């Protein structure tokens, strides 16, 4: 500590009540509209992010119900091809870019700082900015859809169908620009999480003591950082082709339509793991808590996470097995796609071993974890099937694949997410969700999901392609399609009950203690919901399960200032404290920067000059954002 700051107020000088009062004064978000717009509290932004993502989930679900209404009977005239194409494009785009990826990152925004024992996420203003960009991208897409200019080229927007010649109007541009919004926000959150996990862990939380959910988000964040640039390059090239007549994807001028597919899937396949890996972390957390023992094979689990994250980049060509690529290359990707089943299998075996050796408590989150294993294994095994080139030539772009990826994404990620919401709801809101309603929610969703999606495997093998707005009565598909549409009502009922449970529990649920599940990770060491500063004194970690080891006496670190926002910087491997760092205060500038960026990006759909003129307000907003504060940032 430098003598220059000897006069600063530190927590060593006060008793507990006084520390709470002083920390609350400097960390709290100002009440009112201004405070809400300027806040950089990761918990406020995280809750906002999660809520927004679930709103998009509900909207995307409504779209799928409309599609099931149309497909219930052959040659139905309920929805025409133009609207139907918008429906499935919106459903896919919305679920992937506005729900699945953001909601996982949102859970991390809320939970990771608590789980590693710090007071805010790294780069809190960037975090606020990322939420505003995400919201703007979502609004862009949905407002366009309401105005009948929703994208209609499929969620992977293959050229030339999405190119200047075959996609007139601005529909495809809105899709491509929405990508830019969500990727900016996803990349921002990924960077925040990497830095938070690497540099802001509580003293003593060495790499081998990091909770598995945090590990999963760390690996996910690296996958985001490495995968997302590919799609931003692709969507930017598409906008350039459409707006300023470049020819990246035009074969007549030396461009290549398969370039789009390579770039898209180099992102698009890792995307699946960006959604799935956080779910692995959630399942590990839930299983550990409700079997009353640590997850079996911690090191193996971490290695499986990392191996999956790396292998995720070697599989993208299996989305292109029928595009006409050289056979030797395809064989390589068959082998690599099969190989990723090994780390996935290892994780399943470790959970089974954990349950075997533990003492299961059948709460709603645990039911979702069990439902996850049952359905995800099916999704994983059908993944092995489509990894085989000859197999894939029969099921690619059919309802078999629709069934496969819903088993992976709903069974493999949404089930864990719902379990995670039941699990962490008390930490998010201070109230428990209803265990009775929770069981009904699980039952309806589990049964409804399997009845809806399992028959799609059969439809695909019977030759039903995906993305058709209708089919002829001669085809033998009507019976199963009607069955699927009816089953979808059960599934929708489960989700409806879930939303009812969330809203009612948030208002009238049982008040939660700080650790209602007797869990062992740090987020349960503080009140539910946590105070604005998370921890009055930063915890010191002495093991993998800091709360179960010495539940009554969690050691704490002392010496942080109580007169400004300050958190601890620690070393990457051992998490030994290195410095005290100032954490940003609330600021309206991230919102202004997001508005300026939003205006520029939307304007640039119409004219390239928007990039030139739009950079001026963005520059002004960024100058305001980064205006020097005149105080030293770090003290070692």
């Amino acid at each position, binding site marked *: 500590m430098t003598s220059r700051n000897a006069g600063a107020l530190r927590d060593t000088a006060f008793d507990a009540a006084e520390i709470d009062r002083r920390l609350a004064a400097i960390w709290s978000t100002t009440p009112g509209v201004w405070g809400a717009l300027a806040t950089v509290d990761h918990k406020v932004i995280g809750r906002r992010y999660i809520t927004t993502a679930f709103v998009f989930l509900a909207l995307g679900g409504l779209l799928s119900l409309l599609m099931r209404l149309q497909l219930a009977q052959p040659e139905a005239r309920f929805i025409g091809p133009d609207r139907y194409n918008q429906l499935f494009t919106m459903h896919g785009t919305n679920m992937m870019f506005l729900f699945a990826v953001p909601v996982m990152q949102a859970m991390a925004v809320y939970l990771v700082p608590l789980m590693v024992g710090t007071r805010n996420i790294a780069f809190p203003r960037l975090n606020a900015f990322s939420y505003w960009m995400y919201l703007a991208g979502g609004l862009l897409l949905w407002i366009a859809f309401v105005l009948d200019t929703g994208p209609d080229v499929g969620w992977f927007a293959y050229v030339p169908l999405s190119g200047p010649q075959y996609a007139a109007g601005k529909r495809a541009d809105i899709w491509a620009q929405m990508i830019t919004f969500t990727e900016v926000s996803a990349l921002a959150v990924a960077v925040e999480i990497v830095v938070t996990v690497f540099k802001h862990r509580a003293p003593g939380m060495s790499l081998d003591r990091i909770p598995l959910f945090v590990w999963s988000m760390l690996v996910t964040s690296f996958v985001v950082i490495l995968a997302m640039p590919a799609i931003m390059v692709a969507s930017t090239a598409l906008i350039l082709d459409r707006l300023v007549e470049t020819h990246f994807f035009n074969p007549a001028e030396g461009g290549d339509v398969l370039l789009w597919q390579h770039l898209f899937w180099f992102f698009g396949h890792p995307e699946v793991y960006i959604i799935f890996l956080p779910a692995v972390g959630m399942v590990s957390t839930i299983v550990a808590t409700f079997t009353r023992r640590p997850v079996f094979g911690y090191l193996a689990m971490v290695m499986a996470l990392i191996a999956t994250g790396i292998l995720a980049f070697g599989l993208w060509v299996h989305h292109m097995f*029928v595009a006409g690529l050289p056979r030797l290359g395809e064989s390589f990707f068959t082998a690599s796609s099969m190989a990723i089943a090994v780390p996935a*299998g290892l994780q399943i075996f470790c959970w089974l071993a954990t349950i075997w050796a533990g003492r299961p408590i059948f709460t709603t989150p645990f039911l979702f974890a069990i439902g996850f294993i049952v359905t995800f294994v099916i999704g994983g095994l059908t993944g092995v099937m489509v990894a085989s080139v000859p197999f894939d030539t029969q099921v690619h772009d059919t309802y078999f694949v629709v069934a496969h990826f819903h088993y992976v994404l709903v069974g493999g990620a949404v089930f864990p997410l719902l379990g995670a919401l039941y699990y962490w709801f008390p930490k998010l809101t201070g109230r428990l969700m209803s265990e009775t309603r929770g069981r009904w929610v699980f039952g309806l969703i589990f049964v409804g999901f399997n009845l809806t999606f399992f028959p799609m495997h059969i439809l695909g093998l019977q030759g039903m392609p995906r993305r058709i707005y209708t089919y002829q009565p*001669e085809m033998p598909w009507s019976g199963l399609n009607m069955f699927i549409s009816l089953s979808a009502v059960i599934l929708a009922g489960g989700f409806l009950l879930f939303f009812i449970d969330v809203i009612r529990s948030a208002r009238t649920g049982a008040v939660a203690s700080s650790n209602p599940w007797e869990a062992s990770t740090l987020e349960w060491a503080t009140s539910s919901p946590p105070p604005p500063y998370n921890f009055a004194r930063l915890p010191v970690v002495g093991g993998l399960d800091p709360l179960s080891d010495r539940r009554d006496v969690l050691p704490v670190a002392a010496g942080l200032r109580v007169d400004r926002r300050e958190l601890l910087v620690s070393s990457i491997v051992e998490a030994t404290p290195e410095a005290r760092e100032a954490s940003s205060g609330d600021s309206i500038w991230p919102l202004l920067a997001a508005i300026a960026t939003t205006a520029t990006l939307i304007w640039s759909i119409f004219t390239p000059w928007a990039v030139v003129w739009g950079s001026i307000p963005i520059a002004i907003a960024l100058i305001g954002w980064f205006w020097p504060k005149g105080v030293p940032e770090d003290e070692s």
Partner: protein
Amino acid sequence: MAVASACSGKQSALDPHGGPAIHVEHLIIGIVAVCTVIWIVVIVVLGLALLRSRRAGAEDANSEGRLTTVVFAAVAASVVIIAGLTIASFYTTRNIGVPGSAALTITVRGQQWWWQVFYAGSDASRGFQTANEIHIPVGTDVQVRLEGVDVIHSFWVPSLAGKQDVVPGRSNSLLLRAEKPGAYRGQCAEFCGLQHSHMAVLVIAEAPADFERWAASQRGDALTPADPDAAAGQVAFLAKPCSACHTVRGTAAKGTTGPDLTHIGGRQTIAAGLLETTRGSLAAWIADPQTLKPGNNMPMVPLTSVELQNISAYMESLK
């Protein structure tokens, strides 16, 4: 012809009638069987883990060691199974064969939203083209060259072979083979815009002699209509904008945007599998193509009811 209904033909990976599809079906059955067993084992273990009776005492270190062994064995088993499935997949790929050694080559051009089909000529005979209907001789390897002209489509006749994309700027090909005579339906599998749903193709496999007879008739120019209605229809067809997009070989109609209609009356379906070829369905289609197949590239040409009847009769007569 033994085919009962025009629009219906076999279209299922589980009902294979051609060499490649049969090999793939064996692979599908094999992999699905292995995976089903794996799933059942996982579920049984999960059920036992959840429900097994637990002793009141603390867990012993011994059982932890046993679990490690079991998990290790399970991972090893997965590696072996995965390797086995990979090899089975490679083996099937090899069995399906490489296009290029075929006796007959057909060029198929996927367009929004129909299939243009070219049969090449030889020294002895001239080539011809047709639409949405491919005839092949049974028991023969047929190479289908796939040419893209607008957006990506995917050629897929599941009862005969797996699918292959039709990509603008690339030449792909596919091996088709039918072991038995019959009608095999396929449809575009890659989303290609408004009428992706109505882009079917019918493959008619017939005995080599029947195939040769069919090919010979296709090589010929269009028949001169004998029936007076049809003759009036020909006059109207040539006078109206129809001929700007369609070819009827042997007449002045030489348009190339739409399907070649030289022998349309002999095809089982019109509008890429949408309707059976009858005089009534032809009239319905010509009268209002945008209601039957919204967004397709055929405009509604204003016709009097007499002209409509005559043109339909003419089309039907083009066997």
